[in-house]
């Protein structure tokens, strides 16, 4: 009987030792110091309205980042708070929300918005009020020409176009292409840039046709393409248009390669187009297929961890938009570690970001480049048997 209390105290002591050593590690640098002021960062995202499929994953990723940071050392010991506002996918609401964040919440920087229109409106405020803004939208005009206070996390439409041209020249080896694009801003902008840049790569655009976002049949446009010597069809638009085009091509028996835009970089396209989706090729961020990133790289580890944690927390697959939101938060909080909350200092520090490993890629800004990513952070994906595979 006398042996037992000894064992018990030994076990207790051991537990105590473990707890003490653990908390000692915690006291070292891994804890938020509650006496320090909380760092507030504003975010305006499209949580409702047509762009909500973009804004909602961005919001979730930011909330996850906030939790991760505050569970650790915060930013330099400061607790971090992302104050998130909804712009309802409207530029006017985005300006309103941004002004509110600056005046009543006194945020050090602003993230968002999800769409190019809302982000453009916000970038004007960023410039006039001299507050750093990291946008999650892809419109090339947001950062070209460079605006002093505006930075970006997603790859631009231009990078996607460059990737597609590279694919057409070096992989598909075609000389003549046809373009079929949505008549909206995204489709027209992409088709314009593609038509302008293709000749430099030795590619001739033999047909250029458009369709309306709500059209239900594109066979007329496709019969025109069929009558040209086009060796590939580039389709620039978002769901459901490209899915209808893929089906119509199958219906008409047009067998030239279908090269899509990053607008179809989602599983929805495969669901809508069904068997007609097979063989379709499109550019997308490498995070969609983590195995396309070198296995032993920091980037791969970051993406794997991000995807696992996102899945555990929300029971949802993390898409590229979640990555854009996370990266925006990461870039600002990293810069805050040296700059604190001084807006001018913070802007300078964001611009000095170099080789920062994010989810969408490796970020490097400079006074002449506020895009962060490059064409190398993208890959071409091919749909085979209803699944994505890297088209190397």
């Amino acid at each position: 009987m006398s042996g037992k209390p000894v064992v018990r105290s030994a076990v207790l002591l051991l537990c105590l030792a473990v707890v003490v050593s653990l908390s000692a590690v915690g006291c070292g640098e891994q804890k938020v110091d509650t006496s320090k002021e909380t760092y507030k960062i504003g975010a305006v995202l499209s949580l409702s309205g047509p762009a909500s499929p973009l804004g909602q994953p961005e919001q979730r990723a930011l909330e996850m980042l906030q939790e991760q940071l505050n569970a650790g050392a915060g930013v330099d010991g400061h607790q971090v708070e992302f104050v998130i506002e909804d712009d309802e996918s409207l530029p006017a609401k985005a300006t309103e929300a941004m002004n509110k964040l600056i005046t009543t919440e006194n945020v050090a920087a602003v993230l968002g918005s999800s769409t190019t229109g809302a982000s453009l409106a916000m970038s004007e405020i960023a410039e006039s009020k001299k507050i750093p803004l990291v946008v999650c939208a892809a419109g090339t005009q947001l950062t070209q020409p460079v605006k002093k206070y505006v930075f970006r996390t997603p790859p631009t439409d231009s990078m996607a176009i460059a990737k597609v041209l590279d694919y057409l020249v070096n992989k598909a080896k075609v000389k003549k292409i046809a373009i079929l694009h949505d008549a909206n801003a995204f489709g027209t902008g992409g088709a314009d840039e593609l038509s302008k840049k293709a000749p430099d790569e030795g590619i001739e655009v033999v047909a250029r046709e458009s369709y309306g976002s709500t059209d239900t049949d594109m066979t007329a446009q496709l019969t025109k393409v069929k009558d040209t010597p086009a060796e590939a069809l580039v389709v620039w638009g978002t769901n459901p248009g490209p899915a209808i085009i893929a089906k119509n091509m199958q219906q008409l028996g047009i067998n030239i390669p279908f090269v899509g835009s990053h607008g179809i970089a989602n599983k929805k396209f495969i669901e809508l187009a069904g068997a007609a989706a097979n063989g379709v090729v499109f550019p997308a961020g490498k995070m969609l297929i983590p195995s396309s990133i070198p296995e032993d790289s920091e980037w791969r580890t970051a993406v794997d961890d991000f995807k696992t944690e996102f899945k555990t927390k929300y029971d949802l697959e993390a898409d590229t938009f979640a990555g854009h939101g996370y990266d925006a938060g990461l870039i600002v909080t990293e810069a805050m570690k040296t700059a604190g909350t001084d807006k001018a200092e913070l802007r300078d520090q964001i611009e000095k970001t170099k080789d920062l490993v994010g989810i969408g890629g490796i970020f490097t800004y400079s006074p002449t480049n506020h895009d962060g990513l490059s064409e190398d952070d993208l890959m071409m994906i091919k749909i085979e048997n209803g699944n994505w595979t890297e088209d190397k």
Partner: protein
Amino acid sequence: MVGRDADNRILVGGAAAAFCVLIVATLVVKGSTGLQWIMSGMTVGSIYALIAMGFSVIYSSTHVINFAQGEFSMLGGVLMFSLVTRGHLPTWLGFIIAVLIVTAIGAGLERVAIRPMRNHSVISVIIVTIGLAIALRATAKWIWGTDPVRVTAFSSGTRVKILGAYLPPQSFWVFGFAAVAVVLVFLFFNRTLLGKGMRAAAMNPDAASLVGVSSSTSSLVAWTIAAALGSAAGIVIAPIILPSFSSGAMLGLKGFSAAVVGGLGSAPGAVVGGLVLGVLETITAGVLPTGYKDAIAFLLLILVLLVRPQGLLGRAEDVKV
């Protein structure tokens, strides 16, 4: 009045002749490509015609233009997605359940939102239908989200060759359904007592109620039929159009245009209007730069409203004293 009738006959005959010339010219100049345009245009046109018939049913009975008609079709499509694509019910069972649900919604809306407006002008009721359309769209967005959905085609296979053109198998379901629907609607309004009574109720509610057709019953029956027809149409076209919460707006606009072109209140007119619109759109998209396609639909609409406001097959409203 005789001269006026003759004028009209010449006008409609001229329009029909011009349309035939266009079709023949397309076939002669473009061969099998032209045939493909016409066949594809007929598929699109049948879709417009089906929606247009829903407009006609309610207009014939109440003189109200129901701007929520496209939403009935959208609801049919997305319900079919939940029941068949996701719920794995057999197509026929999903079809019946989806139509029943939307029909109940249509009848319910008539009682809740339209009947209380019975003492107001027709234009006020039309504005209420715009409100209903917005409410249905918002509800669908809340339930099904913003993404378009995929509804499995009724029969397998990717394409069917007909003469020199290729169509998806679903096109034939659309053609068949449109043909059956136009016959049923036409017979109902011209051969049954209730149908004739309902038309009478629209023209003169007081006189009709004296002979036993109340405008209240008439309106309820019309909304029930229009919701059933609209949802069934929405289900048959769903595998082609990939419906989403916002599809109803486009369907409603095109269906309304087709109904006006063909003659509001006439079921055969709805079919003619839909087919003319669909074929013209597709030929335009094939011949001109594609941006002009939608302009053609509106041009046709304006032309008809200017020259023959009662539509191609519509009866001029003679108010005799």
